[in-house]
């Protein structure tokens, strides 16, 4: 069973490179001719997580596992953790100002965005022990990859 795993290191507060890991993953999926709407969903989930790590968290690692019928994306950081996950999941809640979230900065927690765009999402965090966001994306049979 073919599969591919890639990992990326994200440095906290390194805005100069913020977003590069997500773009790298996006390019990978494009070269496999995955459906473009699906690629977009995966990439935006990754981007939200990456930006979260750069802004809020400590250093982070992104792991992506590409299988023939699904893809898992895990973003694990050693930052301060999320205080109230339920509240963070509410649409509209954000620690970023409106304009900062617009204009492509994609700042803020964006957890609701990640939830909307992924097929499954699990968040583990303990105060002071960082946060781990685990997402899964399923491909429909005919839009899958060889």
């Amino acid at each position: 069973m073919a599969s591919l795993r890639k990992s990326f290191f994200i440095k906290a507060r390194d805005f100069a490179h913020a977003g590069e890991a997500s773009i790298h993953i996006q390019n990978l999926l494009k070269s496999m001719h995955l459906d473009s709407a699906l690629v977009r969903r995966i990439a935006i989930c990754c981007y939200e997580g990456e930006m979260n790590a750069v802004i809020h968290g400590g250093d982070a690692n992104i792991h992506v596992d590409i299988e023939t019928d699904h893809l898992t994306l895990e973003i694990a950081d050693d930052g301060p953790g999320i205080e109230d996950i339920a509240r963070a999941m509410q649409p509209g809640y954000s620690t970023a100002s409106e304009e900062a979230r617009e204009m492509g900065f994609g700042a803020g927690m964006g957890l609701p965005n990640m939830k909307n765009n992924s097929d499954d999402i699990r968040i583990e965090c303990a105060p002071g022990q960082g946060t781990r966001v685990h997402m899964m994306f399923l491909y429909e049979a005919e839009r899958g990859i060889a």
Partner: protein
Amino acid sequence: MGRPHSTAYVCFDEDRCTGCGACLRICPTRAIRIRQQKSIRLIDQCIGCGACIRTCPAGAVSAAGRKPKDVGGDHVAIALVSPVLYAQFPGVLPGAVLQGLRQLGFHHTVDMSFFLEMFQYAAEEFIRRNRRSQAAPWPLISPACPVVVRLIAFQFPSLLPHILPVLRPVALMAREVRERIIPEYQGTGQEVVLYYINPCPTKSESGPDRGRKRSTHREVAIGINDIYPTLRRQVDKILATDNMPFTRSRFEFETCSTGDAALGSMSGGEIANMNIDKTLAVHGLRETIAYLNKIEMGLLKEMEYIEFRTCQEACLGGVLAVLDKYIAKRHVQKMISVYGLGRRLQRDTILRQYDRGRFQLDKSPDVLGQLFGPHKPALSLQQAERIENTLKLLKGRDCGACGAPDCSSFAEDVVRGEADLNDCIWVQVLNLGRRPPD
């Protein structure tokens, strides 16, 4: 292996380094070397341009300096704010950002606009007088970007006299703080710390004085990226209240920002507002070097003043800035349309200060040359010849495998005894042997 002159504005994390050599190749002073694919060090002057930070794909390079912790807790914290900071907050006016800094613990927040005006007046006056006296050679070069000054000292020392000998805005700002604010705390037993909030790793304005302990205060440089997360939370809190963010401050220059200052954060912004005839604004590292080469050749003499910035889109493109430079630029343009443009200081006031020498740069070209010039000894003719011979042995691909940025640097390293010819994989692979070049 530390060398006494490797003033580092950046630091390397060897655990993260993959030995790809990207930083070596982009360094404008060819100061970086990698040994045994593990140990990265500086062997010559680092000018603090941040190109290595930008280019490293593994996150192994970052700006030197401490991250801000517990600001203002056990000391008096004074923030010296670059207008680039305001550009990181779209839709937010500078007053709220400064107020946010105070809520973070800074006792004073100093805005740069007045000092930019003073600098522009003084620069105009110098140029005006220079048209008659012809004391300084044309074209004059803006001193505002410290990286440019160090680059000139290192690579184009003959151009040092072209640098406008006027104190740059940040220096004027720091001096005012030292003369007006710090004395108020003397005798109270409190330590005073000046925090420079910078968009790039060029450290504090008193770079070479870093080693010297200032008795009255400490100076620290922090990146905008380091303060952004906590600052943004404060700004959001301020925006969420119904009150106008008016802040109480001791001195006028702690709050009133202007459109001119916002303009100054963009390339061309410094000269846009100055009354000088023939000016050019050049931004980007390669562009800057290309133009300095031309000036050294004797071209561009018809220009009076050139504004150089080593970052693309000038300070908005600094590697420690947070917001993308084009988005920030748009925000700056909006700020300018709100604030408008216009000065607040009278020319006469500045002229009086000017004639008293208050804007005179305190470092002569010679001093700049000593501080930032290359410290490698000059090459003898024999050495130069040996370098040429060594170069002929190498492949000329500039692949970076030897840990030097390009083949000519490697050849020089070999001749200076700092590298072994067999460090070159082509020499090994093509079995060119250990024949020393002669």
